[in-house]
């Protein structure tokens, strides 16, 4: 990534044809690298490093005043994964959108096959079949599914978007719904509710941005709200129902017994609340250091940030996420192809869905589901998926003017 001899545009935002024509940064792979939005990439890596620092804190032994030997792997693992994810993100960012679009359907097909196989031959883990074991390789196809469904839907609309300047007919949106629902249903069956919801959410966002009539949007929201009691009664497992009950009790301020389902969320609230406005300080979070919050290295990592860095730290982190999403939406708006726009919307929605749902869940506003906080929670596959999504967004940014043919996509 040599920037030797680079004299001009730092963000690759050279948009006038004259500047583009003359500068070396506009040619070859070095040029593409130079045109990447490095300040945004720095922000993404910065959030990832915050996660590493928080994992270091989770593994801190407050008595020995040293890293606990048992938990030292946490941050070391994470920083390795962050490095791998970073390289992957940059590589994906350099891929032209045409290549993304061409691989959309093959990727979608492979993912569907893998998901079907998981449902039939999957390795059980935590009461659900989520993994496929192929020799020494363990695959979790629901993770690449997030990206594949986004690419497939974007590619689908790229092909089906009418050339006469009209919105696509309802039937086209129906097809999109089907493309989204098949993998979502397969993932839901594993069962992996959080990923199924993420697939549905990002798919819905793509259909929404593809221009489905507002009355259908309103109808969908209406039906969704009306079916909440039915879902609660017939679809949710008993343990999921209990989580919803706990949540409602927590929000309405009803007394909970502080054990079982409500223990985790109670302890999380205590950790966050005890952090106060400015926090207890790095490595000083008593609630967190003494292991009161279960799953603190994964889904509940926001609690240690809120305890050690307080309101300022937690809001600061949410603001950084918000900024990244707004920036991504702007990338979508500027892209010239429907594929680029909708793929960016899908990728952004996936990340945003996890960020919002995770924060809401940790803050006791949403039921507890296995939702990691993007870039920060401990765990390899989720981190790689998020970095790949950012790779797609960066690619859409880098290739915003790329003209895409609608042919050859099917």
């Amino acid at each position, binding site marked *: 990534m040599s920037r030797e001899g680079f004299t001009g545009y730092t963000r690759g935002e050279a948009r006038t044809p004259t500047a583009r024509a003359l500068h070396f940064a506009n040619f070859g792979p070095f040029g593409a690298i130079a045109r990447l939005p490095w300040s945004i990439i720095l922000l993404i890596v910065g959030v990832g490093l915050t996660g590493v620092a928080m994992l270091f804190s989770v593994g801190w032994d407050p008595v020995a005043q040293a890293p606990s030997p048992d938990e030292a792997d946490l941050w070391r693992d994470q920083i390795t994964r962050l490095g791998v994810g970073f390289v992957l993100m940059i590589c994906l960012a350099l891929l032209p959108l045409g290549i993304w679009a061409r691989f959309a359907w093959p990727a979608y097909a492979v993912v569907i096959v893998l998901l079907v196989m998981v449902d039939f031959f999957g390795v059980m883990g935590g009461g659900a079949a989520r993994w496929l074991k192929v020799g020494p390789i363990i695959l979790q196809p629901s993770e690449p599914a997030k990206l594949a469904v986004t690419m497939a839907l974007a590619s689908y609309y790229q092909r089906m*978007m009418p050339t006469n300047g009209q919105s696509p007919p309802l039937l086209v949106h129906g097809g999109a719904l089907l493309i989204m629902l098949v993998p979502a249903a397969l993932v839901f069956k594993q069962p992996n509710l959080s990923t199924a919801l993420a697939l549905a959410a990002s798919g819905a966002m793509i259909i929404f941005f593809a*221009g489905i009539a507002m009355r259908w949007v309103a109808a969908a929201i209406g039906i969704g709200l009306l079916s909440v009691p039915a879902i609660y009664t017939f679809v949710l497992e008993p343990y999921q129902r209990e989580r919803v009950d706990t949540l409602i009790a927590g929000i309405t301020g009803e007394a909970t017994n502080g054990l079982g389902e409500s223990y985790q969320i109670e302890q999380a609230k*205590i950790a966050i609340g005890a952090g106060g406005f400015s926090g207890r300080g790095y490595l000083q979070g008593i609630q967190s250091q003494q292991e*009161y919050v279960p799953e603190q290295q994964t889904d509940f990592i926001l609690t240690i940030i809120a305890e050690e860095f307080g309101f300022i730290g937690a809001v600061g982190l949410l603001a950084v996420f*918000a900024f990244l999403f707004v920036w991504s939406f702007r990338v979508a708006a500027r892209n010239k192809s429907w594929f680029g726009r909708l793929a960016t919307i899908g990728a952004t929605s996936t990340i945003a869905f996890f960020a919002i749902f995770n924060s809401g869940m940790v803050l006791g506003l949403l039921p507890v589901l296995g939702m990691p906080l993007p870039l920060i929670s401990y765990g390899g596959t989720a981190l790689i998926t998020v970095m790949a999504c950012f790779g797609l967004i960066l690619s859409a940014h880098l290739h915003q003017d790329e003209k895409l043919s609608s042919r050859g996509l099917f």
Partner: protein
Amino acid sequence: MARKNSPEADFDRRLLLAMGAGGAVFATLVGRLSQLQFFEAEHYRKLADENHIRLVLAPPERGQILDRFGRPLASQRQAGRVSVVPERLDDPEATLLQLSKFIDLPESRVKRVLEEIQTNRIRRASFVPVTVVQELSYEEFARLRVRAVEMDGVDVQMASTRSYPRGRDFAHVLGYVARASADDLTRLAEGRSPDELKTFEELFRHPDIRVGRQGMERFAEDWLRGRPGRRRVVTNAHGRPMQELEQDPTNAAVAGKDLFVTIDAELQRVAIERFEGESGAAVLMDVASGDVLAMVSTPAFDPNSFVNGISGKDYAELRDNPMAPLYPRAHGGVYPPGSTFKMVVATAALEAGVVKTTDTVRCGGSYRFGNRTWHCWKKGGHGTMNMHNGIKHSCDVYFYEIARRTGVSKIAEVAHKFGFGETFVLGMTGGRSGLVPDPAWKLKARGEPWFEGETLNFGIGQGQLGVTPLQLALMTARIAATGAPLKPKLIGFGPPSDEDKMLDAPLDPAIMEIQKAGMYGVTSEPGGTGYRSGDLGLGGPRLAGKTGTAQVRRISAEERAKGIRGGASIARELRDHALFVAYAPTDNPRYAVSVIVEHGEGGSRTAAPVGRDILAAAIKMDSGRTPVYAKRASVTPSTDGKPDGDPV
């Protein structure tokens, strides 16, 4: 430029809409954060403190038990202890194997430790140490101290443990302590509030804490235990202490109170040695104060082996030992008193006025009543006997006659006056009342009327009559004190033993003088059955006593015809018990003693020399002198755990 309602234009509008929704979500999250971290922060800060600051139990030091001169009989000793912390062990079996290279670690112990480790893991309390060996020898401790540093999860430290420095000597008096079982908890929980109960359960789970299981340790549990304190520590979510905080002195543990027994430990030692391995019991008491100065039951067990849990094998060995070391003979052993009971019969006869001391009975070696013959122990008979000679020679025929004249009810009444048929707790466990038979009892227990022939057996201390060595000592003490009231005591300074009554039923001093004269005759007049044992060997004072032989098995008529009267001709466990009761000095009685040598055959031959030597030792050592707790005994004992008047 795209048209106003083109998909492109629509896209931008919807983007704004989505951003608006996202803004609302962001505002909601920030609102919630400010609620938790700003408006309710104090509330949650308090909850967090309650979460992690815990009051951990600080165990109290158990009170000591000392003898009347302050010699420790049960004390707390610092001993090296090795324990393992399950959560720090990768391979518990390997660690224990490694430990067994440095210390003695039997297979059974290893098994139990592994089980306990497993239990702790299941209870998610892997940080709670499991004791491997409670008491290390000095060499083991020194060796392990060096090695344990290299072994992960192994802790070697000094810990407080109960110890009985005099071992077997006080096994049946003091009993022992043990780790509290579920039964112990149920027993101790009675009448306690739920709050107290919680502390209790926590206390008895502590590895340093033991509960009195038997004897005085059990009786005086509340007195000895003390009150646990609380230490403020930071704990993590699993309850593991992480860090000590500043301590509140009012919350410190209060040690248990010391307890003094009336026994002279040195006299006890002499008495036990005097038994020379024979099984039996002896009780020596101070005639004036009622203090029990020696209380021997032999053979005994080592209470130290119970403190850290006795192995099933060792316990079975004790339980199945034919010499019955677990049996508390002195206060829980019931024997027929034999001839030692004759003073009671004589007293009853005189009280009833059916005989005068000068009345004579002719003994021809047997006594005919109804269609049966009762034999005297002396084959050829004693000739003409009055009361003095009847006691001195222990003539059975004389006592058949006066017992028959007195009647069972009167004898039973007087026996109760001396304390027979009553249980004396004196702060111990396992005490028994024995049995004083009478017609009412027989009708109830056997559904039969009393036969007058049984009165004859009663008259020589045989038959259904059962007494304990402790009761015999009390009887002797009351005779020696010429009938003065007597309050038997074993706890010199400690919790009151309310169940024990004062022995104050009136006894005519004149009648008691007659018994004393008879007992003097036994040991100090030529022809007395205990004449050989009358001299204390102290160049002056003599003792007065009464021998006794308690039949373990009836000699049948055929055997009698063959000349078999016991002795070497029959198996040991069927031989008669030898008994002896005595007091000394004769002119101014200070001590009374009772001795039983199981299967010792003849009271005069085996029991009397033992009784004589114990009395002599008591006089020589002046065992009855003022005890060290005398000044404190006036302090009203309280049981609420306040250290009022802790003895020095």
